[in-house]
């Protein structure tokens, strides 16, 4: 059985040059370091990690907004270099975190949602109004908001507008970059339910980027954990949440605060040192914060260890 991948990254790296000062030259910052990630068609892949780990850079590369320094992105098995940005945009659309800044405040909702149609010259202009109404209905907004401006809408309504804009082109893949973290809990659940419904209705594929692991567990089929530009663990969602291997994943999972009044605040034992991405630690990049480090961790970079579709990059498992 061969699973078709809607989107695939093959050892993608992205290096930025960071200026150190006027006479000091520049140093490389490896934001994404040889990442391979498969996003099977019709599935939801979750991507989790702390800020600064390269999640958003990876998302930008997948969206074609940033070209990788090395490596390749495949769209439905074909290399991205063969496609124009315009072509990529028709197949992959983003939903961003903050609906307050991702919508143009001077345009009406109708104009915001129909912009992709205008740019890509899809259909006759006369049909656009109808399409916008259809999208508004699909994301659960009343037709009257078409003439409103974003400032007249609540946070949840704005995020619905952002979803409508992403879906009007009927893309195959939607990259959701923290789609609910700017929203209230009662609105968050509505948006998550909507994303689920739309996925089933339109057969979408999602890459779900979030630091809220409870949300990722709820939505994703497969989860990748990223740390300092590397994917350090990847497995089916049910497996990863039940039997996390990498100490970093375990720390992440223990930091999830479930509303259980009988439990206190967990001690993650991660320490306060956050590694400098310009000057990453030798060996395993997680070893200065790791509670179960052994001697080899500071000397040798661990190789990926794959067992039953469960990948972990840690010396504790690679023997």
């Amino acid at each position, binding site marked *: 059985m061969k699973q078709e991948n809607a989107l695939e990254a093959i050892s993608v790296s992205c290096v930025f040059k960071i200026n150190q000062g006027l006479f000091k030259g520049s140093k490389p910052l490896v934001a994404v370091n040889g990442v391979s990630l498969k996003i099977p068609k019709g599935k939801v892949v979750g991507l989790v990690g702390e800020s600064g780990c390269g999640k958003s850079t990876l998302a930008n590369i997948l969206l074609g907004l940033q070209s990788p320094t090395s490596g390749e992105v495949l769209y439905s098995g074909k290399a991205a270099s063969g496609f124009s940005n315009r072509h990529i945009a028709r197949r992959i659309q983003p939903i961003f975190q903050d609906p307050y800044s991702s919508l143009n405040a001077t345009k009406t909702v109708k104009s915001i949602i129909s912009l992709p149609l205008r740019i890509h010259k899809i259909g006759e202009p006369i049909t656009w109004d109808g399409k916008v109404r259809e999208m508004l209905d699909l994301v659960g907004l009343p037709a009257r908001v078409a003439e409103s401006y974003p400032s007249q809408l609540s946070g949840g309504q704005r995020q619905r507008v952002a979803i409508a804009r992403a879906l009007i082109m009927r893309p195959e893949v939607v990259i959701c970059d923290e789609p609910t973290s700017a929203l*209230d809990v009662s609105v968050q659940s509505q948006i998550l339910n909507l994303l689920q419904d739309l996925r089933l209705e339109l057969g979408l594929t999602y890459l779900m980027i979030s630091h809220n692991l409870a*949300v990722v567990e*709820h939505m994703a089929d497969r989860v990748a954990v990223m740390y300092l530009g590397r994917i350090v663990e990847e497995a089916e969602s049910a497996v990863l949440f039940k039997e996390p291997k990498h100490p970093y994943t375990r720390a992440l999972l223990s930091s999830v605060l479930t509303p259980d009044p009988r439990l206190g*605040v967990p001690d993650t034992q991660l320490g*306060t040192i956050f590694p400098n991405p310009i000057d990453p630690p030798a060996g395993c990049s997680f070893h200065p914060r790791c509670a179960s480090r052994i001697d080899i961790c500071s000397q040798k970079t661990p190789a990926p260890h794959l067992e039953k579709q469960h990948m972990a990059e840690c010396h504790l498992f690679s023997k």
Partner: protein
Amino acid sequence: MSDKKEVVLEVDNLRVDIPVSAGVLHPVRGISFDVSRGETLCIVGESGCGKSLTSLALMGLLPKKAHRKADRLNFLGQDILDFDERQMARLRGVKMAMIFQEPMTSLNPSYTIGNQLEEVYLRHMASNRLEARERAIFLLDRVGISSAGSRLGQYPHQLSGGLRQRVMIAMALMCGPDLIIADEPTTALDVTIQAQILHLLAELQSDFDMAMILITHDLGIVARVADKVQVMYAGRTVEEGNCESVFDNPRHPYTSGLLRCIPVPGKTQPGQKLGTVPGVVPNLVGEISGCMFRNRCEFANDECKQLSDTPTVLDDGHAYSCRLSTNEIDAVIGD
């Protein structure tokens, strides 16, 4: 457990009024609570429920246009309701301190953190720079910042978000306050750092025997750190009580609705529909009679238009403002 702890802050019927062009906005409509030494009170609610204005009202930091009213506002046995700005300035930072959400905007980027830490101490404690420096180093060390001495010369932009929030906490502790008000102290941080900061706050609170008011929208945080909980909606308290009682036995439809909104690993099935609380917060301009939540409540009927303000009190101080009897709600939610 048996000895009664000293009550640090007592608030009775606190209100905030802000005149706007359409009338008078009432973001806080009469809330009451008290906190004792060593106790953590969590105020939880969604944006616009008045939780942040409540904290600013307590600190006397409301915008000039806003008016604070209360039946009683006692801090360490003193009535501070009619304190003027100079009297409040002598309390703020010394006896009551605040930790804000965004450590980047609440630290001054053009001064070193040593400078900012020492300033509080020099301003209030009539001491010299050397003592202030010692105190700063002691506290930076205490909040888990390594090589504290050399950190004093650094600027806020040289620190990561988690370290900045630790500096904010150290700054709040400089003069040994009796009350800490933390307004969404971890919202801007990563989950791992959030757990660390909350862990640290809880530890410091018991070590220094302070009262703490923690304001958040995250029910997970509330459940883990609170002793007492106040659930706010549209400027009023809809449910209050001790933490276990509120989470195990939520009585108000808003509280139970919020709890059903969040996915909980192990409890909710992946992909299953989450509960929702449809609708939006009512407009807070002018008086609103009856239950504020009725336009979003699945149990609401005509009676809710004339809800009295007296909450139903269960045993153990757990109280809620809803006309529905426990049995009526159980009949619907129970299964």
